[in-house]
Each structure stands twice: as structure tokens, then as C-alpha cells.
């Protein structure tokens, strides 16, 4: 960790040398450790100390981007010059809106001293605990435990000065018997907030319950999707529909549907990076403050997230969801997807089910079959159960589903009041915060073996 003052001093020295009309520097630095275990022992244990500086130079409407991970001053000067040279060599981009000006950001505490100081030994202790509990049931266990500390800074020649130090921690576990597996995971800004005891108890119980699974014929069933399963579905919907680019290109299920009913009125899906209960973060990678954005509110399609360039194209303002300039081909991206909680407890949700399937999580989802109709496919994994008369009866062999998310989300029976934080593809700046959902209809189209 370099620290705000020292980092700004170094980067402002470089920014001051720019000969471009506008210049932006994004700094991403992190020290991260990840302990991975399988067959009940640690088999990979890694640490990375890295920092990337991304320079964006603007001459009129010409834009050039270059990046380096060397902090040596001469390398920074060279990379800045490279970005200017790239800008000057290309035609003008009429769709470039210019860099943003200074802004005020919500103060959010995203750093935890203890998590920042977590050691490989601290992570190994957690793994040892998980292995011990699973071992008492004679289950092997696989998973990972990660901690990191990072700094993100955005500076530009128009006065943007954004800085945020962060920490993150996550743990994941998959206990396994000869015939079954269970699952639990957690993520947050503070290592100490992770309820490892609760997670290991829950995942071991699932593995136990799922032993000697039976086959279920594919078909249309009532389902309870637990939070990891809901998160995996929303992560794909985010990728194919909640960003500005698929929306503008008419590939999103929200395209042409704004203001229309697309799901049950019990469903609200939104991005909220400002909620400190989640993995919060105050600004995007252009230095624009984050805003809460509804994709679906009480069943009605509302909108998508924008950066400045795609916002200009769509006649909208940036919602604070830009990614870094060297990774911006796919437009703005939501990093803190949430589904609003309901009123039912998760236990009550099971007891409300007459006959159906409980899905712990999915494996290898894909949402590109027919994104305008929000068609998803994927396999169940690590705990699929048959429920009858309000009780979990037995484990099921894994099933493939293929269904339209919009169609399935029109059949909501209940949404849990409890929500879980699930690690996402963007773990340093966000996570998914989701409940369990009870649907009246969900189409399973295949099975394993």
C-alpha cells in the first residue's frame, strides 16, 4: 500500500507532464493472498503484489490508452507518451464525450486493518477448521480462502481526484462424500465478518442430506433457488442485459421493454454500490460517483447502467458504472447487483412447497442462447434436493435447466427476507446481494448421465 498522499504526489508529477488536451490516470494496486485446498489439504497457496497504471490521453476527439505495471518514474513517463502517440495516430471518435470534471463522493469505509494484515497462516487456520469439521463426517473438502488489500485512485487533468483503499475477504467450501457434495460461501470487506462456523455446518449438512441421490425426470417443476443459484442467474443477466451496450444494441431483454411489466411485481433488481452492508465502492473507473440504478422495479423494466460514452450515445447521463479505459469495449457494467428481499423466512419457504426441487447453486450457466428473451441454461451442482409436503426428502442427481428468466420470474411464490452476499466477477469493488426465491415454474431439460 502506497497511501493517498504519496500516490497522488507521484501520479500528479506524471500528469503535469502531459501534452494532451485531457489526460486521465487510473491506478489499481493490490496485495492479495489466496489459499486453495482440495482433498482436504492446501494444494495451492499464492500471493501477488501488483499495480497497474492506465493512461488515457485525449487530443480533440482522438483518444489513446496505454498501461504499465511499472512504478518506475521513467516507465510512467514513457507510458504517458505512448498514450498520446496512440491518440494522435487514430481518427477522431465523434462518440467520445470527454473526461468528467471533479465530483464529491459518498464517504464509505471500505478498509479493515485486520483484514489488510491477514497472513497465509491466518488463512491456513480457517482451512484447517473447515477440514476438521468435514472430516468428522468422513467428508473430504475443497475450496478457497482469500484476503486482499487494495488501493484505487483516479486522477484527471480536469480535477478529478478519487482515492479509495479497500480490503476484501472470501471463503468457499465444498464438502464431498462418495455420492454427494454440499456448498457454502461468503464474502465481505472484513475477514472477521465471515461466518465460517455457520458456513461449514450448513455445507456439511447439505452434503450429508444429498447422499445417495435419486434421478428426477426433467420437466417443469416448482423450485426454490437458494442465494448462490440466484446470484449466478443474475450475474449472467447482468452480463447480457443490464449493461449499456447490450441494451443499446437491442440484445438485452430490457431493450424495448422499459416501462413494461417483465416479471412478477414481487421482483426488484438493482445495482447499489453505496450500501455499506455490501462490498461498497463510491465511484467508477472514470471518477464518476456511483448511483443506485433499478433494472426491474416491482416487476417493471426500468433501465440499465451507463458510462459517459454509452450514456452520450443513448441520451443519458453516466450512472457511475464505467470500467477502465483499456477494458471498455463492452460498455458500462454493474458491479453490485442486488435483488430486493421478500417477507418469507427460508425455512418457511421449504415448508410452503408441496412438491418441487431445491437448488443450492448452478454450474457453468450461459445466457447467450437468446438474450432478448433472457434464456439461460446451466446445470445444478453441490446439493439438489426433492421437496415434498414441506420437507426435504432426498438428494437428486444434477439436472440441466433451460428457461427464460423473465418467464420464470413471473411465477414467483415467495422471496426470502434473508439475503446473502455472494462473491462476483468484480470482487474488489462489488458483490451480489440476493435472497432465495420460490418459483412456481422452472424448466429442467436434461440430466447428468
Amino acid at each position: 500500500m502506497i497511501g493517498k498522499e504519496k500516490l497522488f504526489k507521484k501520479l500528479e508529477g506524471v500528469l503535469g507532464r502531459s501534452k494532451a488536451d485531457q489526460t486521465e490516470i487510473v491506478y489499481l494496486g493490490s496485495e492479495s493472498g489466496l489459499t486453495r485446498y482440495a482433498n482436504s489439504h492446501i494444494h495451492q497457496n499464492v500471493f501477488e503484489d501488483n499495480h497497474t497504471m492506465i493512461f488515457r490521453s485525449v487530443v480533440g476527439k482522438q483518444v489513446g490508452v496505454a498501461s504499465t505495471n511499472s512504478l518506475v518514474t521513467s516507465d510512467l513517463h514513457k507510458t504517458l507518451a505512448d498514450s498520446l502517440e496512440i491518440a494522435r495516430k487514430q481518427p477522431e471518435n465523434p462518440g467520445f464525450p470527454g473526461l468528467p470534471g471533479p465530483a464529491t463522493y459518498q464517504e464509505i469505509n471500505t478498509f479493515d486493518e485486520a483484514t489488510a494484515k491477514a497472513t497465509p497462516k491466518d488463512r491456513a487456520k480457517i482451512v484447517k477448521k473447515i477440514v476438521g469439521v468435514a472430516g468428522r463426517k468422513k467428508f473430504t473438502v475443497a475450496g478457497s480462502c482469500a484476503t486482499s488489500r487494495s488501493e484505487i485512485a483516479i486522477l484527471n487533468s480536469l480535477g478529478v481526484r478519487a482515492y479509495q483503499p479497500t480490503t476484501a475477504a472470501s471463503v468457499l467450501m465444498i464438502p464431498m462424500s462418495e455420492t454427494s457434495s454440499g456448498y457454502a460461501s461468503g464474502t465481505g470487506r472484513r475477514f472477521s465478518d465471515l461466518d465460517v462456523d455457520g458456513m461449514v455446518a450448513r455445507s456439511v449438512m447439505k452434503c450429508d442430506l444429498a447422499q445417495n441421490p435419486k434421478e428426477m425426470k426433467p420437466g417443469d417443476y416448482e423450485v426454490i433457488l437458494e442465494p448462490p443459484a440466484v446470484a449466478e442467474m443474475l450475474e449472467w443477466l447482468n452480463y447480457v442485459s443490464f449493461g449499456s451496450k447490450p441494451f443499446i444494441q437491442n440484445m438485452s431483454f430490457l431493450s424495448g421493454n422499459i416501462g413494461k411489466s417483465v416479471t412478477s411485481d414481487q421482483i426488484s433488481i438493482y445495482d447499489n454500490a453505496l450500501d455499506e452492508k455490501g462490498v461498497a465502492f463510491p465511484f467508477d473507473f472514470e471518477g464518476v460517483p456511483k448511483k443506485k440504478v433499478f433494472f426491474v422495479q416491482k416487476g417493471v423494466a426500468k433501465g440499465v447502467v451507463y458510462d459517459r460514452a454509452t450514456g452520450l450515445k443513448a441520451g443519458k447521463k453516466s450512472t457511475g458504472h464505467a470500467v477502465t479505459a483499456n477494458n471498455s469495449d463492452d460498455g458500462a457494467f454493474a458491479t453490485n447487483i442486488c435483488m430486493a428481499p421478500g417477507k418469507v423466512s427460508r425455512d418457511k419457504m421449504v415448508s410452503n412447497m408441496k412438491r418441487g426441487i431445491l437448488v443450492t447453486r448452478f454450474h457453468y450457466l450461459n445466457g447467450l442462447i437468446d438474450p432478448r428473451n433472457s434464456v439461460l441454461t446451466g446445470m445444478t451442482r453441490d446439493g439438489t434436493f426433492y421437496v415434498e409436503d414441506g420437507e426435504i426428502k432426498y438428494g437428486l442427481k444434477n439436472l440441466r435447466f433451460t428457461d427464460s428468466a423473465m418467464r420464470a420470474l413471473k411465477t414467483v411464490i415467495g422471496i426470502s427476507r434473508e439475503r446473502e452476499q455472494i462473491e462476483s466477477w468484480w470482487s474488489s469493488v462489488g458483490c451480489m446481494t440476493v435472497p432465495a426465491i420460490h418459483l412456481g415454474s422452472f424448466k429442467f431439460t436434461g440430466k447428468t448421465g
Partner: protein
Amino acid sequence: MRDKLKECIKLLKAKGVDYADCRFVRRENEALRVSDGHVDSLSRTLDVGVGIRVLSKGSWGFASTANVTAGDLKKTANLAVQIARASAMTAHEPVVLAEQEPFVASYQTPFKKDPFEVSSETKIDLLMQSVEVLRANAKIKTAEGGMRFFKTKKHFVSTEGADIEQDLLESGGGYHAVAFDGKEAQRRSYPNSFGGDFCTKGYEFIESMDFLDNAERVREEAVALLKASPCPDTNTTIIITGPQMALQVHESCGHPIELDRVLGTEISLAGGSFMTVDKLNKLKYGSDIVNINADATTPGGLGTFGYDDEGVKAQRTPIIKKRKFVGYMTSRETAPIIGKKSNGTMRADGWNRVPIIRMTNVNLEPGTWELDDLIADTKQGILFDLNKSWSIDDLRLNFQFGVEAAWEIKNGVLGRMYKNATYTGITPEFWNSCDAICNRNHWRVWGVPNCGKGEPMQSAHVAHGVAPARFRNVKVGVSK
């Protein structure tokens, strides 16, 4: 850099580690994207650092740093030892590495034109012209093209005396058009979906891809898809073209033969494999004509290199031989478990990632058919072209793929077009139903530049040499 790396090795030897290696990687990347008549992005990235892997008292530790001063490397080496000690806190059998000759060698990707020496104007011009042709129909609402180039320098040294330098060069690109008629949106790509095709060659690869000659066809097929019928829900004969065959091999053969995955070490992310060790030399994987090799020496393949990231020489390994499952992709740690030496498939996605088993060029060997003859020989069926969606279970058994476009085959002739077409199956049953593979005239190595595996996530560059092939009695048309 050699002196600094060797100092680290000296330090680690003095600490009495079982084994250690230090790997310097310097990777340059250039990426261009042209969209709807303007340059969307043009960027260059430089990424440099050192990864240090230590085996101490039978346990692994890995530490990496972007700060490559002698002092930072020493600190990182010490940290790797501490991490290995923490790994020993969970009891396990000590790691034993297969014997390996410590090579002192170098390797360079053969190429004709260094893409980093070709002007950005030349590259932009080719993409702009292609996109212009794609946009020449009012129904095309988006047309985009891109190129990416990678130049990687690696220097590997180990406590066993290995000292290997490699200079790798990769090039690739492609384009796509999205047609929209107010209700339906459909995408068509060239030469492959998701960014095009990639290989270990220079800019001559871009020039060989005939971007301009194919743009009109791609445009018209995207527009035609708007009026295409949905793929029928039935069981039928299918013919799969090259790029989709590459992904079929990738997901249903390439991943299941990674021995680390088979042994359970990828469970926490990507799952396991049905091709367990007890099935080696016993499992009938496909029909008699199915022969698959993992070949890190295939000329131009995106999975081609000189030495892997454990210093093992690139090689060709039979995987499926006349339908029988005969081999895995292995590492120095996993190979002894099946009584073998490593066949050189350990690669890391940069200096900051630990090497894991990755596909090289996993190739389906060509058969005997001309594609036209194969279509003419098919009474009823569907031809599937270019991947659109992919999904497979955590043992690599139940898969479902969607494609950009499909065509009905009726009495040996291609007929109407289908949109949103999918096919699904169970891996061994599916490969057992393969009754024809096209010949070497149709065989091409397709690069896959985004193969995800590992935690933290690693994206590998791999490839598959394939030709179009025919499969019988396949379930198609499951779309919602």
C-alpha cells in the same frame, strides 16, 4: 534479469527448500476495436513481474511481485517459503515431482511480420473497410471488428539448473454484425465468434484471413437470421463446422483430460472430470474414427510453445487412440500418480499466477470426407455453425451448445436457416455417435484465447485442430 533470478535460486537453495523455480514474464499487448465507423479503442499494455514457486517440506508456496529489484525479489522469495510453511498446516502426503532434465535452452515463435511493427493506420484501415461492408444494409445496427496482439518474453530458472528463455508472439482478430428488425436481434461473426481467431504467428495471419472477402456474406446471413425459423425440438443427425467443433473438443475432451482436475484440485471452481484414473486405457471414448492428441508443437497453434512453465519440453501426447482413452495432460506433480513423467502442459497466465495444467493444442485428427460429400450423404439433419452459447456440467458429461446459425439438411442439400439453434448430449455417447470426420483439406487449428480455470482466475491461450464432423441421433432445439 538472469543474475537476479539466479540470486533468488541461490537464496532458496541456501534455505534448504526441496525445489524452487523463478519465472520472469514481460507481456506486451495491443488491442484495437472499431465500432460502427469509428475507432472505439486502441490500447497498449505492458505487464512485467516475477513469480517464485517453492516446494518446502513437501508443500507448495508461491509469491509474485511487479517490483523486480533484487531487494524485492529476495523479499518475495522469503515470502514464498513462509507460504509453503503455512500450506503444511493441513496434513497431506508430501508432493513428489517427476524427474526432469534441466534444460538450458531458448525458443522463439516463428513469424514473418511483427504486428507491433505494423502501423496502427494499416490495422484500423482493414477493420474500417470490413465494418463498412457489414454496415451496408439498413438492418445492421451494430458492426464491430477488432484485433489483439501479444508479445511475451519468459525466463525460467530452477534449483535443478534449468535456464530457459522464450519469446512468444500471438496475433488474432475478427468482426461481427448485429441485425435488428424492431423485434428480433441476431449476430453473425467472422472467422469465429467472440473476437475471431488467434494463433502463434505474426501479422501475416491477419492478412491471410480474407476479412474483406467474407464481410458481405456475414452481413447477409445476419439479416437472414431475422426471418429464420426456430430450430425444431427433435433428435436428428448433425454436422458441426470447424469453429464449433473446436469448442466441442475443448469442453468435452480438453478439460476432462487435465489430470489436476481429474485428481480433484479444480473442484472449488470448475469442477472435476468423468475421465477418472481408473478409466485410463479402458474407457471407450468415441467411435473408431475418433483420434485426439494434445500437441504443443502444432505449427501456428495458439497452444504452441517451446517449454512449459515447469521447464518441460513441448510434446505431442495421444489422448484418444482409435476410440480408446489412452492419455492425460500432466504436470511434474501429477504425472507420477499414473506412473509417468510430465508431458509438459503446465502454464501460468503471467508472472503473477501459479502454473496449472492447461490445454495445449488438443486436436481431433482429420478423417476422410470432403464436406460437400458429407452433406450430400446426409438424408436428414442440421448443420451447426459458430458458437453462440456453451454450458457443461461439473464432470464434463452433460453439455449444451448454441450456435449463431444452423441450416436444415434435406436429401443431401442445405435448406432453410434456423436461428437460436442448440444441441445437447452426454460426452461419451455423443462421441460414440461420430460417424464421419472431414479430411485434411478442411482441418484447421482454431485459437481459443480465453480459456478460464484456476483461482485466482487464469485465462489461457489454447487451440484445437479440427475438421467438420457428423454425429447421429443428437437432441437439438432445446431453447426455452
